């Protein structure tokens, strides 16, 4: 399959290793990966902060760039949710543009979150990964509620050789990131993060993973500040790790 990668702005600028891991996994599975030029951001930050017209500009950019794609893979649950649930809303209620809505509705069924692409589109549970670490999985709000990924990502993790998977208590609760919420309501966000970290630490895992680097930036930022010694690693990077070329 010819997979168009939508890297997302956070992965592009802050987490290039996640993008590299996605490329590695998909190519290992025999797919061709292309990275269309001119892509930037899904518009989630603008949209969620109330800057709807600016978000519409991002919808137009995304549709323009990926219109012809066979499939689009996105290594972020929240960006995928933005595209799937909010693009139609923005086209209908903010842009009020029937042509844009039509283009969005034609494109959205071909847009997949990375783990969802593996489990649901390709029907895989084992991607041949090896990662000898004790890991707990944070199922982001968007993975659970907007995308309904259920335990698809967990199934992938269960099939990683050497990986010791520990269940995260109270897993369905938000980590407190919420985009600009983490800054605007920093204290409430911190209270949520503290409880999330308490649960992570209770698992004695060395790694907390998720399908979204924005949650992980938040959780990882807290774990780092508290010198917990627990790291965060995107799911794609775990799946990219193999016995031949293990990820550090």
């Amino acid at each position, binding site marked *: 399959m010819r997979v168009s990668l939508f*890297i997302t702005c956070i992965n592009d600028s802050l987490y290039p290793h996640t993008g590299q891991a996605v490329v590695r996994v998909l190519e290992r599975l025999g797919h061709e990966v292309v990275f269309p030029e001119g892509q930037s951001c899904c518009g989630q930050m603008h949209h969620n902060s109330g800057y709807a017209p*600016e978000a519409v500009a991002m919808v137009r950019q995304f549709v323009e760039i990926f219109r012809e794609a066979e499939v689009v893979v996105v290594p972020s649950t929240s960006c995928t949710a933005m595209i799937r649930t909010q693009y139609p809303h923005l086209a209908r209620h903010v842009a009020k543009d029937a042509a844009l809505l039509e283009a969005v509705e034609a494109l959205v069924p071909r847009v997949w979150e990375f783990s969802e692409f593996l489990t649901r589109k390709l029907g895989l549970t084992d991607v041949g990964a090896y990662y000898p670490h004790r890991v707990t999985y944070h199922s982001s*709000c968007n993975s659970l509620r907007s995308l309904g990924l259920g335990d698809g990502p967990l199934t992938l993790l269960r099939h990683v050789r050497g990986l010791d998977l520990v269940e995260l208590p109270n897993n369905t609760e938000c980590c407190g990131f*919420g985009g600009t919420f983490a800054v605007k309501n920093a204290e409430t966000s911190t209270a949520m993060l503290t409880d999330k970290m308490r649960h992570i630490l209770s698992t004695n895992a060395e790694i907390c993973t998720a399908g979204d680097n924005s949650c992980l930036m938040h959780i990882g930022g807290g774990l*780092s500040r508290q010198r917990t010694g627990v790291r965060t690693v995107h799911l794609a990077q775990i799946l990219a790790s193999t016995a031949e070329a293990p990820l550090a």
Partner: protein
Amino acid sequence: MSNATFTSRAAKSLRNSQLRRNINKATTTIRGKTARVTAELPDWEALRLAGREIKRSTLAELDKHLIALEESVTRAGGTVHWARDAAEAREIVVRLTKAHNTDQVIKIKSMTTDEIELNPALEGAGIRPYETDLADMIVQMGREKPSHLLVPAIHKNRVEIRDLFRDQMGSHGEGLSDRPTDLTKAARAYLRDKFLETRVAISGANFAVAETGSVVVVESEGNGRMCLTLPDVLISIMGIEKVLPRWQDLEVFLQLLPRAATGERMNPYTSIWTGTVPGDGPREFHLVLLDNGRSKILADEVSRETLHCIRCSRCLNVCPVYERAGGHAYDSMYQGPIGAIVTPQLKGLEEAGSLPYASSLCGACHEVCPVKINIPQILVHLRGKVVESKRETALGKLSGENMAMQVASRLFNNQQALEWSLWAGRLGQKLLTRDGVMPWLPPPLSGWTLSRDFPALPEQSFRDWWKQRENGK
């Protein structure tokens, strides 16, 4: 109007260990109960859809159903009053009460009367209102605001309640202990006196049925039943969105409400009355239909489903923000996620503009709402209105946030500028970076570094890596 915002009020509550403990305990328990009793119904999902659809179609022809309700209530011997806003509603209730030469009224759980600030208006007219729902009574005695839709005194512990009772219940409060049974016994004796000596009662309404003119109140204590049946005069105030077209519609909502609200299969007391009946119950019945901004909400195609709300409070009980910030942070009788969308629409964004931001948009509220209100979508919609109104002023346009958003927007639409800004960022971050992270950032990003390190930009972006790889092929 004070300068306090959700953020500043929450900051205070977050340090209140009693509040944190009470809310965590209560919401954890109730989450478990509601999850159990909703999961046991094979048609729970169908009920939710039915509830949503009844509300949607009723609101689409609200005028018709309200007129039908007025006709049925009048036919059954009641009187209907229309109130455009809080002031009109207050005026109607005060006038009706005064007409009966009484200096006190009893009240049963009505968020609508809190919304229109009825109690101060009654007091101003020399009429003393007594709340008779136990928790509402506690909140009233403490001269506070409710902190939970359904458990208004959730923030109080029993010692605090004992002190209030000792102070304000006269002989019933003397020498009272803080044992829950003693507290409820005292409240019971105190309230019985009020029920028997008061001639005018004021209630809210959960539903009103247009075809029969019946009004419904559901409750747990039975104090509502006393209020609704003992006095000579009953005045009920309801928001116009509470009307249901058919008697049969109750079948759906009387299943949805208790299961979503308290996790009970059926609430202990369901009172339904239709006008007046000679020799039984109040001799005079008034129904006040309150708009107070609701028709404005109805006119907004994105946020109109706010009016679906049946005030079950399930969204509060699953909300991680509410659980930590507490109800008083919302500064309204409507708290939690539903409060964050109702209050700004009723009070206006100028007064309650911080509330749409009181959410991480985690979606837990939408997931459990018995009438499927997409609260996160409406929160984002209201944020859009806040931004829109701010951008109408020069100062708002020049605000740090707007400028930052504009710059980000430009960068995302200009590849070269984006790459240049990443380069500049890498250079600029050198001063702030320690061991690969930035432990401190200047305002407004200092909110982030309050508790989190920020990752430093790596030397190579993904797109640079990709380019390099393509060139090497």
